[in-house]
């Protein structure tokens, strides 16, 4: 959308940069792909593109630790190009691509393909996550050293929990050699059985098979316990239960090297929304929507820093996989384009500070995997977004940038929108009419 050599000045916006504790009206100067100055007044160099951000927020570009770009192998759902287009439209300038591609990202050729596609798309930065085990089967270690050398920033068998405690122990141990965090999808498959939603009174009423919150809790407790034995870095994906929040809070208090993420949908929706939707599979995801008590614990965990990051678990699926009976539909919902307004609702309700919200979307996330970005400090990559916290818009899945349409927010009016996204100083997204 713009010349990479362009000089950009973003004027008059409210800069919120938790990495430097900044919250105030500032102007930004971006040059050569870097943040050159953040100050109350910035002289506009000749030929610079000037963007007026008055009344809006200017923050570091968001960092999403958990995105399914579906390429290679499932390009009918999403591609690196469409997924990163959706990302920048939602304010995410960096995304971590989960390894459940076809074939799995358990070898450097898949990693390299993802990075080549990302470079060609030239939108959001893509950081591949490598598989923790070969084929994500939980049986043999993947090549962590080579995956890291090719560009992987973390390891995960996401979606296929490592049920063998012995395998998990070895994965944690071996990851230490390369300093890569192990990102875990916590779910005891035996306890889940054929469960398709949260076990509880709502599942009972709907007659849908339930999976108890304890299916997550026991695995979080197991892995925190293993972490004491092995060392390494553990990252808990999409935390959804009060029990997990308690366990992680306690582990952090004891100094264990654990980080955690939470999704926008788990922060605002409950299993009652499955009933209200009349069995709509766009409310089916894994982990499932939990109880109101769980949602309360997640919000507290996010506010107090127990949960480090907001990650979308953006999971595109085709209508053929979603327009089905609830039991038969695949798990997962879109997230990139709606995350900011959905989470901003917590700020409006007084449950989260603006600073903490931006932190969880930027530097809080970046630190989990040791990523560059998430900051507007001078010299940092010029990944910047401008957000209009007051812009209301109706979610029309047909007008989204993702290839898929599976969003629980369809038809809803959300407030808050990314109006501009810069990656390395290049304007990669601009909303024509945010109103």
């Amino acid at each position, binding site marked *: 959308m713009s010349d990479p050599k362009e000089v950009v000045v973003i004027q008059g916006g409210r800069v919120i940069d938790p990495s430097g504790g900044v919250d105030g009206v500032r102007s930004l100067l971006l040059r050569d792909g870097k943040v050159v100055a953040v100050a109350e007044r910035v002289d506009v160099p000749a030929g610079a593109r000037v963007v007026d951000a008055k009344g809006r927020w200017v923050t570091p570009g968001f960092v999403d630790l958990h995105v399914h770009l579906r390429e290679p192998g499932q390009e009918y759902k999403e591609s690196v190009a469409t997924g990163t287009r959706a990302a920048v439209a939602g304010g995410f300038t960096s995304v971590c691509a989960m390894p459940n591609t076809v074939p799995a990202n358990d070898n450097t050729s898949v990693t390299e393909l993802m990075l080549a596609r990302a470079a060609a798309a030239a939108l959001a930065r893509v950081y591949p996550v490598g598989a923790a085990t070969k084929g994500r089967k939980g049986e043999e270690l993947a090549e962590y050293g080579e995956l890291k050398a090719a560009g992987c920033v973390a390891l995960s068998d996401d979606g296929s929990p490592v049920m063998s405690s012995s395998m998990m122990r070895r994965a944690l141990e071996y990851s230490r050699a390369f300093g890569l965090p192990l990102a875990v999808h916590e779910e005891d498959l035996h306890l889940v059985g054929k469960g398709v939603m949260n*076990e*509880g*009174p*709502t*599942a*009972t*009423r*709907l*007659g*849908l*098979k*339930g999976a108890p919150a304890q299916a997550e809790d026991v695995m979080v407790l197991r892995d925190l316990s293993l972490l004491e034995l092995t060392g390494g870095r553990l990252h808990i994906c999409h935390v959804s239960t009060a029990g997990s929040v308690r366990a992680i809070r306690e582990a952090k208090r004891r100094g264990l090297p654990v980080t955690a993420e939470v999704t926008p949908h788990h922060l605002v929706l409950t299993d009652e929304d499955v009933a209200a939707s*009349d*069995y709509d599979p766009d409310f089916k995801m894994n982990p499932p929507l939990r109880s109101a008590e769980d949602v309360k614990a997640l919000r507290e965990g996010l506010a107090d820093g127990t949960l480090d990051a907001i990650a979308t678990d953006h999971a595109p699926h085709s209508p*053929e996989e979603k*327009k*089905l*009976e*609830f*039991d*038969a539909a695949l798990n997962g919902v879109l997230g990139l384009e709606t995350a900011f307004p959905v989470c901003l609702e917590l700020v409006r309700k007084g449950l989260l500070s603006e600073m903490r919200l931006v932190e969880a979307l930027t530097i809080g996330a970046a630190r989990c995997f040791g990523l560059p970005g998430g900051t507007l400090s001078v010299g940092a990559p010029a990944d910047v977004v401008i957000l209009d916290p007051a812009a209301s818009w109706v979610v029309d899945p047909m007008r989204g940038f993702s290839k898929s349409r599976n969003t629980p927010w369809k038809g809803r009016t959300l407030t808050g929108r990314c109006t501009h996204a810069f990656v390395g100083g290049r304007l990669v997204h601009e909303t024509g009419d945010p109103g």
Partner: protein
Amino acid sequence: MIGRHRHLIGLEGLSREEILQVLDLAVSMKEVLSRPVKKVPSLRGKNVVNLFFETSTRTRSSFEIAAKVLSADSLNWTAAQSSTTKGETLLDTARNLEAMRPDVLVVRHSASGAPNFLARHVGCSVVSAGDGAHEHPSQGLLDCFTIRERFGSLEGRTVAIVGDISHSRVARSDLHSLPKLGAKVRLCGPPTMIPLGIERLGATVHHDLRTAVEGADAVVMLRIQHERIGDPLIPNTREYSKYWGLNAKKAAEWLKPEAVILHPGPINRGVELSSDVADGPRSVILDQVQNGVAVRMAILYLLAGGAGEDRAEKVSA
């Protein structure tokens, strides 16, 4: 229409008045079944399609007879188990059937919510004949009808439902109807068969059969499905039968003299019910089958005929 409803997906959304509308009409329908010529022209020219994704003999036959007595044309469509297998999707099946212009689609499916899904996508009335562990509304209504027929009213009566509540759509439909008519419901079974939060639907939960059935006016015994054994919900049918099965001795010692026994069928004789109880004087199990036809006639009449109570009068006349 049943009250405000174009479909009968479940009893959860039905009011007391709407349930009574069906039951009262079913009384007239039952009279039709006792005539020497069991045929009235009420639904002549209407099409009823029975779309069954799960095997069923009695429910499907019951809907089929109900349609025939009312002079509707009925068609049975047996479909592949699920849309995850290579067959066509539920939506495609529904659209194909809709193109044949049925008036009522009677559907049974193993997935809870499948009738809700169909109701959103087809133009005709949808009647659930049982979906997963969600609801089996015509069974709930015929249970209400049968108990009401015996006692005149459900007001102040107590009904015990015994068995695998977790997997039972019958228990849920009973729970969504009996209390609206003034009955108290007790649920009983081993803790592994009692789903979380079921008491929020307005029932008390018991694990001891005696306390559940003592003082009850009606006892609904649910079928124990063999696939639940070693699920592992129970160790075997022998122990289940010992603690949660009903035989003549327990019935004589624990039940009120006038208490009746119901069962949605098919019975596992010797597991949840001994033959002496199933075939004994307390059993209203075959009344349930007959009442099932009457209740389903009432349902089809209300949904396909689009009639109010005034037209119902003409049927019985």
